[in-house]
């Protein structure tokens, strides 16, 4: 680049780069000064950034920078800060009785919020995000409570679980009458008709009559002579409109054959007592509990 190569475009007064394509010349318009200024400022900034912030990958780890900034540590700090911010309400929750929580709007709001979050994390996979349940998994919005629907009952069920590994677990097991050969297929058919009749639906009268003794011998111990169930064993009421494994004759027959019983884990040790309390309050609030 020598001076005698310089060519100034007469129209714009700008130098050309000396490049030419088919008579079209390229102007060497300088970058706007503000743009160039920002560009240089960014370079200076990035050098400063390398010094103070984590920047360069190394063979082992990376350069930490003077500020020793770490998002992982920040998250841990934020969580710690959140925990300490919640500490006051949390400890109030731990010491307050269930009745007290229910009658204190602020504490109740706190418990409901915590319970809802804990439900989403821990309970929703089986009971559904709206606690609506599904076949084999109880709906927690309704008025049917196999193990009791009072706050204390719900709290206990969450703590010990159902057929869980806890020593105090809620425990019961319906025999697999068909699978284990306790009853013959014809007897199961008769019993099915009997259970249908129990829930006030039309059934085969002869079969119902035949099954009366069968029910008394095999089922009444847990479900009661009248079929209204027994909370001691978590035995469902067979006379109502609610069916955990479905209410059609086919589904009732399948359940007698298989004797299924779901498992709910014990949450003791996995969730704090305050969280279990909040969960009980949240679940109780869904359908009003008992």
């Amino acid at each position, binding site marked *: 680049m020598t001076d005698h190569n310089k060519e100034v475009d007469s129209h714009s007064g700008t130098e050309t780069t000396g490049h030419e394509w088919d008579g079209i010349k390229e102007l060497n318009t300088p970058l706007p000064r503000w743009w160039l200024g920002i560009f240089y400022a960014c370079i200076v900034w990035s050098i400063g950034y390398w010094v103070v912030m984590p920047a360069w990958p190394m063979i082992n780890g990376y350069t930490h920078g003077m500020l020793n900034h770490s998002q992982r540590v920040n998250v841990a700090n934020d969580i710690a800060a959140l925990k300490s911010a919640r500490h006051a309400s949390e400890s109030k929750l731990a010491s307050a009785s269930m009745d007290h929580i229910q009658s204190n709007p602020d504490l109740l709001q706190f418990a409901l919020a915590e319970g809802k979050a804990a439900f989403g994390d821990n309970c929703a996979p089986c009971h*559904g995000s709206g606690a609506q349940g599904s076949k084999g998994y109880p*709906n927690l*919005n309704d*008025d*049917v409570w196999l193990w009791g629907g009072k706050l204390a009952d719900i709290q206990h069920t969450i703590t010990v679980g159902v057929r869980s590994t806890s020593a105090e677990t809620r425990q019961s097991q319906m025999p697999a009458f068909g699978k284990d050969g306790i009853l013959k297929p014809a007897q199961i058919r008769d019993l099915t008709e009997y259970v249908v009749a129990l829930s006030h639906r039309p059934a085969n009268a002869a079969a119902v009559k035949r099954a009366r003794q069968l029910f008394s011998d095999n089922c009444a111990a847990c479900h009661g002579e009248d079929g209204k169930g027994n909370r001691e064993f978590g035995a469902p009421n067979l006379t*109502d*409109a609610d069916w955990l494994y479905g209410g059609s004759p086919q589904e009732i027959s399948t359940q007698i054959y298989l004797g299924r019983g779901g498992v709910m884990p014990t949450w003791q040790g996995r969730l704090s007592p305050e969280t279990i309390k909040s969960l009980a309050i949240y679940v109780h609030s869904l359908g009003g509990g008992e």
Partner: protein
Amino acid sequence: MNAHTKLNATIAAAMDEAANGVVRSDAEAINRSAKQAFYKARVPIYPKLVHGFYRKLKWAVMAITLSIYYFTPWIRWDRGPGAPSQAVLVDLAHERFYFFFIELWPQEVYYITGLLILAALSIFLASALFGRIWCGYACPQTVWTDLFIYVERMIEGDRSARIRLDKEPWTAGKIAKRVSKHSAWLVISVLTGGAWIFYFADAPTLARQLFTGEAALTAYAFIGIFTFTTYSLGGLMREQVCIYMCPWPRIQAAMTDAEALSVTYRSDRGEPRGFHKKGQSWEGRGACIDCNQCVAACPMGIDIRDGAQLECINCALCIDACDEVMDKVGLAHGLIAYDTDVNIQRRKAGEKPRFQFVRARTILYGGVTAVVAAIMLFAFMTRHTIGLDVLRDRNPNYVRLSDGSVRNGYTIKLLNHSGHPRSLELTIDGLKVTSFNVIGEHDTKGDINILVPADKVRSLRALIAIEPADLPKERREFTFTLKDPASGEKVETRSMFIPGGGQ
């Protein structure tokens, strides 16, 4: 020959040609459109002080608008205990906006939207009637620039003194003047940023915190941001903001028309222009003596005699400048005046000038403004102090109970806008229900009374169950009604009951 003596020679030459004590200015309209290039460094403008009606009006508007801005947060307004006692407050933490006797919640933001629409329509109407009076008098850019120029003039002197100072070498005196000017600008800028943050917190408390270093970092950050913008926009960039950055000069062209008032050089009276010596006849020539005082006074660096142009903010300072000159040469005021180009055409054609304020455009803008204002006023007068929002449970949509009845769940939000706690009555209409209860409230049937604390929302769960005999075949709409038994105020919200599939 140095710059100083050269300038003096120019002034002397100009004096020579002037008449009746009118100094011909060598001011150039540096922002004249013919001179504008795409890439151009800013040429400084040295607006000259003028005296007259519009200058006085502008001082008054500046005093009023700046007073409103700086002092409003300090006005106290008693709202009783537990509520802030600041008349105008944007309380972001508690999600409330206070304006004297008005308190707005975030869900009532449409009142703010309405006010903005009203502001836009008013500026349309003002533009259609009087041209750019917003730009010329009330725009913050104009007001603060005017204030900064005033400070500059106080420290460095008027136009010619400032031009001289700019050309001087850096002496101690020049440095002192420059330092004091920029310091004064910075003080004003800091105060501007400082005033802004007082709208968002209790002013006396925040002022104390600011000085003791206890205020939130955001408060200091916002002072910093506003200091920067005020200093750079008002002190350094000035007319460039209006010419290059502001969209309004482009938009307002659509709001005005030929009949809208505008600061106008009456070329019919002024042309042909030329120097005039005392005693010379005015026959065969125009009233403009080409003294350039209108150009010297212009803060935008234009020559109004070029006609209407985008750069002109209609500040009317050239009117005062010209009127001063007209007094000296003994001619009538109004060579530059609020006028219209069509009037100039009419005068040239020998017709009488007319001012048509009532036109289709102004009627339309005025009418729409009035309608929107009326709607807003009506909405505000009939505004409820209680509110009811109902969110029906969608997961699950319905719950079948053990006796075969069906229950729907609802999240109910009860709003109490007033400053005292109220017991509100919740009822349902249009649905025969077996049970209706609100969890946590003891009443289980019929009317339910719920205590809502002052200025709060209470969120509750309500359950409605219907037994099989009364169950509707299809989903059914019904109404929740919330009533304040004390005042009789009532709000209603529609919702739905879903009976679920038959089983």
